[in-house]
């Protein structure tokens, strides 16, 4: 499944510079070094963290997209940074667990 295909399933795009990227698995976490140590390339990364370091980690760890769960907000400035760094950011209004279950059904 491509990142942009999630938009048809209740996920909202905040930044989508590379929507054709394929999602391969997922990782959930808010501690950045755990994400860098455990997430795999092309994973969708589900988190509730929304600071600028999230964008750097998503870029350097080469995840296919960041999915902000719980409907958390990201500032316009950070969304612009994500676009400039080629980082896809989506948002789900569901809690983290429900977001993961939904994603799991879609990418399985």
């Amino acid at each position, binding site marked *: 499944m491509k990142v942009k295909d999630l938009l048809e399933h209740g996920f909202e795009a905040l930044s989508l510079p590379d929507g054709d990227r394929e999602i391969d698995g997922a990782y959930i976490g808010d*501690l950045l*070094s755990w994400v860098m*140590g455990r997430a795999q390339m092309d994973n969708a990364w589900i988190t509730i963290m929304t*600071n*600028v*370091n999230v964008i*750097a980690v998503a870029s*350097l*760890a080469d995840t296919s997209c960041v999915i902000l769960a719980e409907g958390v907000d990201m500032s316009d400035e950070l969304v612009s940074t994500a676009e400039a760094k080629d980082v896809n950011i989506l948002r789900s209004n569901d809690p983290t667990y429900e977001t993961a279950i939904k994603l799991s059904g879609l990418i399985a």
Partner: protein
Amino acid sequence: MSDALVFHFDVDGDNFTSAGQASTQVKRNLRQLGLPPAIIRRVSIAMYEGEINMVIHADGGTADVMVTEEYIEIILKDQGPGIANVEQAMQEGFSTATDSIRSLGFGAGMGLPNMKRYTDSMEINTVLGVGTTITMRVNLA
């Protein structure tokens, strides 16, 4: 490519919300060189962890990256407080990060272990009150 390529960066110690610039630039350079994504990813993560550590724990430093046909070498050098007990610092979960740093998502005590995990060799030279130099290599051949 017979000569080694070298990149030098000064890592600012004041502003760790913008930290990661050196690693981001290195990622871009390695992409332009056409290196495999898996290699770029390992170098990027190892360097970012080290760069963030210099900002958070050592008030900044310098980063030098050398790309040869056989390997990519990253040398991170700071004049920070040094690491009192390297063996302890290398353990997953050990961290002296403050609460404000933890609130940004750092401070899990996983940075140094990640640097080791993603590189083929890693050497830490540290002297209390003088600084820390970390040399990492990722093999290409």
